[in-house]
């Protein structure tokens, strides 16, 4: 099989690292979910459970200098970019040590120094923004790439269209992806779009598109590598559709009764961690024992992070007034 062959090209260390990030993502989000159920997290709580391979795969395929505009189920990308579990948990708990200092919650994080554009709730809003980052790279002649995504639902927004179109016209170095988990909140794909594959949408921009098994971290990684290489080579944007399934409710409060149980059963078998373990085993890169060890390491990191987050201070009320405007010294002028 072509894919199986190709995965041999991925370095052992890289694959193992991706596996580690799959486990770290899972452990961290399981912890978040538990905290939410204990009432210790207020506000929204969106996880990537069962979809971790997407963010882990694409973020692993990028270079340090590249910029990402993650989607709201891309925790793995934050982790790979260096956001620690402690920072993430501090963010969830509204602590001053979170990336937004308590100004915003949950996955609404970003950090220019780590090349992560902060998520904006308004879905697809960050696609034109990432396109603009790619425009900057092109204007300056840099060999950097932007990588930006949205969900199946988000592809219905006008900003998706305007970003895709602009990027295609100017052949900008940006890779767009859609995290197609078959539902947008409760809305099934058939009420969201008339095409059966989101990738069809790329045809309107003469943009190359590819359908990828979103639960296979190696497939995501390799497809991302190809698209990134094309964009970096100046051949213009590309579109990737990562097929997957949302295994929880939209947010923790949603029991997702509108999803047929069989669908979940079916996809449970395709769990990205399971899939990665099968691959690693097949390639002789790991076994039960080493998987267990990595899982434990991830959990420990999360627990250490939680301790950090819990011990971190909340912001003081009047900090609400800070930061509306940037000051001269923050940007070179």
């Amino acid at each position, binding site marked *: 099989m072509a894919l199986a062959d190709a995965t041999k090209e991925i370095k052992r260390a890289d694959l193992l690292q991706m596996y580690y990030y799959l486990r770290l993502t899972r452990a961290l989000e399981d912890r978040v979910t538990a905290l939410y159920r204990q009432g210790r997290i*207020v*506000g*929204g709580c969106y996880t990537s459970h069962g979809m971790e391979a997407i963010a882990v795969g694409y973020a692993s395929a990028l270079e340090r200098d590249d910029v990402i505009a993650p989607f709201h189920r891309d925790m793995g990308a934050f982790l790979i970019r260096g956001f620690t579990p402690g920072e993430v948990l501090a963010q969830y708990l*509204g*602590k001053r040590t979170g990336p*937004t200092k*308590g*100004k*915003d*919650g949950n996955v*609404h994080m970003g950090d220019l120094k780590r090349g992560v554009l902060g998520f*904006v*709730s*308004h*879905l697809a809003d960050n696609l034109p923004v990432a396109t603009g980052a790619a425009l900057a790279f092109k204007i300056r002649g840099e060999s950097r790439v932007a990588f930006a995504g949205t969900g199946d*639902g*988000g592809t*219905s*927004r*006008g900003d998706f269209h305007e970003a895709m179109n602009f990027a295609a016209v100017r052949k900008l170095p940006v890779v767009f992806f859609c995290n197609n988990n078959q539902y*947008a*909140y*409760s*809305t099934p794909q058939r*009420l*969201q*779009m008339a095409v059966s594959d989101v990738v069809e949408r790329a045809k309107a921009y003469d943009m190359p598109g590819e359908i990828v098994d979103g639960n296979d971290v190696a497939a995501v990684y390799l497809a991302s590598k190809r698209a990134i290489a094309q964009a970096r080579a100046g051949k213009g944007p590309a579109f990737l559709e990562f097929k997957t399934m949302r295994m929880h409710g939209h947010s923790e409060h949603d029991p997702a009764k*509108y999803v047929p149980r069989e669908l979940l059963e079916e996809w449970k078998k395709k769990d990205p961690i399971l899939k990665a373990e099968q691959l690693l085993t097949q390639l002789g890169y790991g076994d039960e024992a080493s998987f267990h060890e990595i899982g434990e390491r991830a959990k420990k990191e999360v627990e250490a992070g939680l301790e950090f987050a819990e011990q971190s201070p*909340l*912001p*003081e*009320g*009047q*900090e*609400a*007034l800070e930061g*509306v405007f940037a000051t001269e010294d923050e940007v070179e002028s």
Partner: protein
Amino acid sequence: MTTATTQSEVTYLEAISQALDEEMTRDERVFLMGEDIGAYGGAFKITEGFLQKYGEWRVLDTPLAESGFVGAAIGAAMMGLRPVVEMQFADFISCAFDQITEVAAKNHYRWGAAVPMVIRAPFGGGVHGGPFHSECPEGWFFHSPGLKLVAPSTPYDAKGLLKAAIRDPNPVIYFEHKFLYRRIKATLPQEEYVVPIGKADIKRAGNDISLITYGAMVHLALEAAQLLAKEGIDVEVVDLRTLVPLDKETIYGSVCKTSKAIMLHEDNKTGGIGAEIAAQLAEECFDCLDGPILRIAPPDTPVPFSTPLEEFFLPKASDIISAARKLAAY
């Protein structure tokens, strides 16, 4: 309102549901559009059961595209239907801003086409929603001629104003406060009623100071008024209910009686509705005024997420109390 045989208490949220249900039953032109309002019953469950009752063409789950479905509502309204559109959160109304201000608001003025539609916008903070799930966008639309705006504070008003909004021949934005959804209850009259658009309501009569507000802040105002009463400061709480058109008669009447005014709202201070009312008072009731017109509103920042930040941001009873004391001493 005539007294009536009463039903059991309903929440603010249930009052909204009831209004939708009654209007859909009364008038088959009324239909609903929005994200996840069908099988799921809406993010806040306001339309739970509606899909089963009215079918998928009157309870229409839309693609995730606010500009598109608001535009579609405008078109359907011009063809004689009465669409009621749900924003999942008021914050996302920014995505439909162009359709609302340039198409819906101006069609009738420009070429005489009435656009009878309602946009329901669950707004406001105090729910740990952060910058994108707590916004108060009414200030933008307040400054857009051609739109009517309402913002009920009680279950009674919520039901009556929504029914009035649906029957109005113009585009109406209905600001429903998320914080109030399940926090307040009231017994509603069993017979039909409508709360007319354009009428403010004195929620507490008083002689010393007019406290002019709307939405969730009405409850804060009443709370503060009660505490101030103990100090002998008799506050009149004016609940605007309708933001456009403003009920100048009631507002001016109250201020000319008390000679002192405080504006209170949850929307950002600068350029908020309180500014307009203060300006009107300073222009048209100047001679009635016995002191400065004070404003209590959040600072000019987005709504922050973390609890201490959001608490700092939102107006508090103590803010009202100190403003009232200051004014009373004037």
